[in-house]
Structures are given as C-alpha cells and as structure tokens.
C-alpha cells in the first residue's frame, strides 16, 4: 500500500511521518501531482496559517489535485480547515470539499483560553475512523479556529461551544485534533484510516 503525505509549506509534517513509522508504514512525503494521484491513501496534515497556505497550494496547483482525489484522504488540523469552504483566518477561500465555514473561537468566560490546547474528548463519533471506540476518548488539540457542527460532522468536541472535531464526506476524512500526537487513541485512528 502506498501512503502519501502532502508536502507543503506547513510545519509538523514530520510528526505524521514518525507516527506512521511507529505503525510500520513508510510514507512518501511529496508535493508531486502524479505521485499523490497514484497513492492508495493520502494524508494532508498542517500547522500554519490558512490564507498563506491556500496561496501556496494554489501557486503549486495542489488545490485542484487535492479536491479531485478519489482515494481516501485524511486532513489533519489546518488540513481539515483548508478542506472547508472559507476560513475566517486571513479571510481565506479554501478547497470547498466540505460545504461549511471555519470560524474563530470567541471566549465567553475568562477561563476560555484561545488557542484550545490540550486533551479533550470526542463525542457522537460516527465514522470508520473511530471503529472500535467504546467510550469518549481523549485526543490532543491545538487550534484557534473551529468548524461548526454540520451535516458532515463525524465527531464533536465541546470547547466554548460544541463543534466538529472530525468530518467525513465520501472519500474525504478530516480531524481537527492531531492523531499523530494523541497516544494510543491516535494510533488507533490512524490505523483505522490505513485500513479503510
């Protein structure tokens, strides 16, 4: 099985690579169109700023490539946000795979700190990514922008308000949290994706 990780101007691509290696998978980290299109599964990770990253993807024509992939794709963190329609971060037009917008957290109480950082629970999970889950598991989050609940919500988490911590539509899967940093629970989610 050929696993490709989309390489672009974002940080933390190596964390995903390390996590895959721990599962015994040697991924190809690439921005090459042909290699991406011929992979069996694709991971689209990301830590960075939405508008800058979208510009980079457009300049390198990766936006059209990602949108048109037919094999299972997993977007992580910024990757998930970029798969949506529009982000308030830098007023960015995104890929539009999920017909929903990305909004900035607005603290309601002093204890609501932004970014939402740390371990929080997944509830109402409904996707093969969470196969085998028997309780509300904790996963690791770091983000200031969120995707509201919508028809593609595959897991929800509550911080300031309930929002989408995972999305799923056809061959596109996405998590707001970092499975590559979420211990054994994260490993299970990655393995579930690899076994789709």
């Amino acid at each position, binding site marked *: 099985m050929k696993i490709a990780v989309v390489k672009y101007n974002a*940080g933390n691509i190596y964390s995903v690579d390390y996590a895959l290696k721990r599962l015994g998978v040697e991924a190809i980290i690439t921005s090459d169109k042909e290699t991406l299109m011929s992979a069996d599964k694709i991971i689209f990770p990301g830590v960075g700023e939405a508008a800058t990253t979208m510009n980079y993807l457009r300049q390198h024509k990766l936006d059209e490539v990602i949108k048109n992939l037919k094999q299972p794709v997993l977007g992580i963190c910024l990757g998930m946000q970029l798969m949506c329609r529009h982000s308030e971060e830098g007023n960015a037009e995104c890929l539009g795979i999920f017909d929903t917008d990305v909004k900035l957290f607005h603290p309601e109480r002093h204890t609501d700190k932004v970014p939402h*950082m*740390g*371990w929080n*629970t997944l509830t109402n999970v409904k996707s093969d990514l969470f196969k085998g889950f028997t309780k509300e598991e904790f996963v690791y989050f*770091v983000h200031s922008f969120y995707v509201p609940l919508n028809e593609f919500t595959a897991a929800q988490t509550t911080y300031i308000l309930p929002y989408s911590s995972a999305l799923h539509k056809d061959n596109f899967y996405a998590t707001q949290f*970092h499975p590559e*940093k979420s*211990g054994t629970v994260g490993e299970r989610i990655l393995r579930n994706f690899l076994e789709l």
Partner: protein
Amino acid sequence: MLAKRIIPCLDIKDGQTVKGTNFVNLRQAGDPVELGRAYSEQGADELVFLDITASHEGRKTFTDLVKRVAANISIPFTVGGGINELSDVDRLLSAGADKVSINSSAIRNPNLIDEIAKHFGSQVCVVAIDAKQTDQGWKCYLNGGRVETDKYLSEWAREVNNRGAGEILFTSMNHDGVKTGYANKALATLSDSLTIPVIASGGAGKMEHFKDTFIEGKADAALAASVFHFGEIKIPELKQYLCQQGINVRL
C-alpha cells in the same frame, strides 16, 4: 471538557536526565527516551525536555535526542534550553519538537517571542519564567536562577502574553525542590490576568499539591520532575486521585 495536564519535566545534560534541588546539586535519573516513553505509557499528557548543557557539542547531542524522542513518543513534547534565535527554534521543530520553551533569551530579547509566534505560531512558543518572592515582590531571574533581573513576574507575564506566547511556564524558585506545594497564590493571580494557559512548576511533593494547584492555583497544567523520576508519585495513581477529587483529567 478540556483536561488538566500532568507534565513530567526531564532535565538533560549530555544526553542524560538529571534533576537539581533548588537549582543546584544535580542527581542522575535515567535515559530520556526510555523515561519519556514510560511516562507516556503511564498517562503523562505532555513532556518537557530541558537541555541544561551549554556547550556547542551538547547542543548537537540534544538535537539528536529530540529526533529520537519524536520518533518514539506519541504525545506532544516541549524542548527548552539554549534557544537564542529563530534558527534554534527551526532546528528543534524540524527535529520533531512540538513546542519550544524560552527563558533567559526572552528576557534579554523580548522580540524573540513575537518572532517565534509570527513564524511558527503562538502554540509553539512557551515562555518559562523563573521568579522568586522578595521584599520587593516577585522578581524574575535569568540563567537558571543565578541572575536577578529588574523585571517583576506579573508585568513580565502580561508582556509575554501580549507579545504572542502560547503558554507560560511559571517556576517559583522559593518552592522548587522543597516539595511543600506549588506557589498557588501567585499562580492564581497570573491565571486571572492572562489569556493564555499557565503551567505550574516547582514544589510538587504530594498528590494533594497537584489538586491544590489546579483548584487554588487555577493552573491549566502542572509540571514536576523528581517526584516522578524517583517514583514517589506514580502518574496513574495521581490521575485516579485527581479524578476522584472532581478534576477533569485524561484517563
């Protein structure tokens, strides 16, 4: 609900874990990667690796260690020590660290905080503050607590917050290594005046101390070293205890 975090801290010298009492008298305590993995398996929420070697050689050893940690451990980790410029941050993040912690260099060059936040995002930038309660109030210290500065804790913490740091790691030098509990009053004041998470450090001796710092100290996370390294407190038992005390922790 967002969980309170338990963070073991590993001081690293020449690739080995050490921990001092009141910042002096270092004792040896194991291989960092093995120790880090053991903590991760026991339920630690994050790890901090502080490089206390100053030499150029030591720095290279530490970068190699960061790579080994990233390859072997599946929870987030912060690295600190000897970070003076953006290229140091870039080197450590490229080696696989999730966050960097800066201390003396932030006091000497506060712009470094803005630069890290701008280039790598706020979430990457942890600012560690070592402070001591004196007759004039809480004063900040440099170089592992050896040099007093003219900065006061609350003003400096607010500045750090406004410049774009993602978290503050506050160590009370009065409490560090003494094992009589965290500096909860100062912590609560910090937590109330900041918009970013505060990590409590210095003073853990008993499980109650963690409960107290989450409740009285309003800390978002609690860091400790020797109580974990020498097995005086075991993380699974600590988390069970905190859960029973009504504190939301990851189990």
